[in-house]
């Protein structure tokens, strides 16, 4: 079955590593991803305004195009895109009048009928099953102690959460299937500081410091995540952390898919750490 793939802006720029590795993983596991032609902005942040439908046009346009191309599933790699698209989808599915208004407004697009399911790539891997992942593993990664970091947008609100919002396990399951050892990591869903990174990087630095130190305390030798914004904050703010906490030792950060391509013998990313 073909699955529509919505990259979003970050995957083509700062998170290119996530896209490259994820597409390689999909290839290795025979997941048939087809990038949507003419994709536009996902909407960036899901609008909580009930009555301002204009804010929903961007995600619904994407869903309408996906549906018109005959896809029933749309997958994303970016947590922000996932959250915005999935929430907008529920928002219009719950109320046909809203949907009609948005459809009327987008008269240049085909009408969206509500028949697309938005799934994060992690959910697709979960549905594939750990056995399939295990059988694709070519390299022994049993020495790797991994802290799996989720951030917020994959798990909340619960209506679109891909796993238990307090005690998620989906990343750990995948990491375990690859042969690595996920560590106990209570800070796994703590906020990374999100967009504060743009104007108040020290807020992010302080938060990320606590997150990474907690991973280290629990024996992790690297942290994996799936969210490009979390990844940026966890990785790039380590410079600021060093200034605030001189004793801080760097912590390697990877996209979960980078571990996967290494495990599948496609890359050798981990050799450098």
């Amino acid at each position: 079955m073909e699955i529509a793939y919505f990259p979003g802006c970050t995957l083509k720029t700062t998170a290119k590593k996530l896209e490259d590795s994820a597409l390689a993983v999909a290839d290795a596991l025979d997941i048939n991803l087809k990038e949507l032609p003419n994709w536009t902005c996902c909407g960036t942040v899901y609008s909580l305004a009930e009555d301002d439908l204009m804010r929903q046009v961007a995600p619904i346009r994407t869903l309408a195009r996906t549906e018109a191309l005959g896809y029933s599933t749309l997958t994303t790699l970016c947590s922000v895109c996932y959250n915005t698209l999935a929430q907008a989808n529920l928002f219009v599915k719950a109320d046909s009048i809203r949907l009609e208004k948005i459809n009327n407004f987008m008269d240049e697009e085909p009408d969206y009928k509500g028949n697309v399911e938005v799934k994060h790539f992690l959910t697709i891997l979960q549905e594939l099953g750990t056995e399939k992942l295990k059988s694709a593993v070519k390299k022994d990664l049993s020495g790797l102690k991994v802290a799996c970091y989720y951030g917020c947008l994959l798990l909340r609100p619960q209506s679109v959460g891909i796993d238990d919002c307090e005690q998620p396990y989906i990343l750990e399951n995948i990491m375990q299937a690859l042969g690595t050892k996920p560590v106990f990591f209570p800070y796994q869903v703590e906020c990374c500081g999100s967009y504060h990174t743009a104007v108040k990087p020290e807020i992010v630095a302080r938060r990320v410091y606590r997150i990474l130190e907690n991973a280290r305390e629990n024996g992790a030798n690297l942290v994996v995540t799936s969210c490009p914004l979390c990844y940026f904050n966890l990785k790039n703010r380590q410079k600021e952390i060093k200034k605030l906490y001189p004793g801080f030792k760097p912590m390697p950060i990877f996209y979960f898919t980078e571990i996967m391509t290494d495990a599948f013998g496609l890359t050798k990313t981990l050799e450098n750490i």
Partner: protein
Amino acid sequence: MRIGVFICHCGKNIAGVLDIKRLVEEAAKLKDVAYATDYVYLCSEPGQKEIQQKIKELELTHVVIAACSPKMHATTFARAVEEVGLNPYLLEIANIREQCSWVHHDAPEEATEKALEIIRAAVAKVSLAKPLAPITVPLTRKVLVIGGGIAGIQAALDIANGGFEVYLVERSPSLGGHMAQLSETFPTLDCSSCILTPRMVEVARHPNIHLFTYAEVKNVEGIVGQYKVTIEQKPRYVDPDKCTGCGDCAEACPVIVPNEFDQGLGARKAVYVPFPQAVPLVYTIDLEHCLNTKRLIVCEQCYHACGPKAINYLMEPKEIEIEVGAIVLATGYDLLPLEALKEYGGGIYPDVLSGLEFERLLSASGPTGGIVRRPSDGKIPKRVVFIQCAGSRDPEHGCPYCSKICCMYTAKHALLYKHAVPDGEAYVFYIDVRAAGKRYEEFVQRVMEEERIVYLRGKVSKVFQRKDKLVVWGVDTLSGMAVEIEADMVVLATAIVPSKNTADLAKLLKAPIDEFGFLNEVHPKLRPVESSAMGIYLAGAAQAPKDIPDTVSQASAAASKVLGLFSQEELSLEPIKAEVNLENCDGCAYCVDVCPFDAITLVVEEDGHKHVEVKKALCQGCGCCMATCPKEGINVAGFTLNQLKAQIHALLKEDEDD
């Protein structure tokens, strides 16, 4: 036929919106209406007098009262018309308040039109009404009380003291319920078992109470006045008549399992009494953990240890059939499982406890002898964090309601902890402190000020382990600061949920429950201890979370309702029951299947002629049969198909002949 129409102003409630003058004029023009008038408060004494006088003076044969909902005053007006000799079933209430003036206050003209339609429909319906007489059914003046906690104990004692027989059924091996597990009770700090145990003994000794512990209600049939109940007595494998409660068997038993009474924090043997003051003081072999099975006896230690030879491995479950006239449901509560609160480490870390677990640690007869110790390493915790509203007031956990008792017992816990560990620190996270009750607020103030407990207004987001400490992340919303506390122990005031099996039991009794599984009362204010299933009464936390004083009050209230019911020799029931029209009924029996009360049976006469028959006592007048019948072969008295048709035609402004 001379119909009188009386229209109530209800002060401004109705008259402030509707054009009463026009209603009276139009009502007077309706067919068969001999008289129409209005009055400021028809339900008042002079209002009722006015109705009575006009009935006599004008020889009215039928009456329509256009006023509030029949739920409000149907009985008031029925009594009024009855006093002057009019059959109360020739009275119809047209609800022009709740269903008209209140909801359409912004559109008075249309509302007046609607009120007129409602009145027209009521007139059409009453014109086809027939006088009805209440039916009487036998009343078995015995009661079944389900649940042997403080609610069930209180209800059983009150009814038994009133002179009627009580069957008290408790699922566990002893009376007492959760109250027996508590250390001390707020706000007086009475020792819980000291005040409860005498009541338990009184139940066991009462000549009017038949006590069934380690038993469950298996089946209930029938209706108010005549329930047939099947009780299953589970086998204790110990003869209760021979057992002296000496405990020699437990001493000999080689199997040690967690004790449910101590919330799993202590241990018991496979042959056990839940706690030393258990009533009855009879040991029970828990076959699930005993080395013996139904088929194979491999261990006879207890058998040999038992002096009076009370042990009997071959005991079988017994079924006991009883007949009662009323049932009191006092099935109590459970706590939301700790596992549901993963963010607080519930079910993950041994030192994250529920309120009831902490209660056992505080109890002098508890697993630690009243010394507060951590389950993980036995150390005395020097810093304890109490988290209120753990699951309660939280739609995400399915319990948006307040569990009511947690503010008080948390204050009590903090106080008792400080008394047990004077150099310890106690923190309480709360949303609001709800201390509504006699001397409750004073108690909480005392805890806050004199015991120097730190109350932090805010929620906890997460609890996790760091080395041998529990890290609590919360917020103090008064100072606006994030708070991190390294604690030795965390106590969660977990939400109160209905006890398991309450829903099954409610289904068996056709007693409605709410969306959370608590038993529903008929009216939250005016009939708080009755279920809408007649003859079923509610007591205790099975209806909603409540503390001991409220539970005892409600149990006594339920008991007084039962005593009121039992003050009559026979039961008089409303005549609104299904009636079979033998001319039309051909015995197709569609109605038999749809009847939710199994009140309809199919009868085949000797000549092969078939028809259905209604057991009046069982019928609740719901009308499912009438709606299903394709031949107008069955009708609910007072709501016949013809009456309903006339009502609908009138609403649609059609003459029935059209």
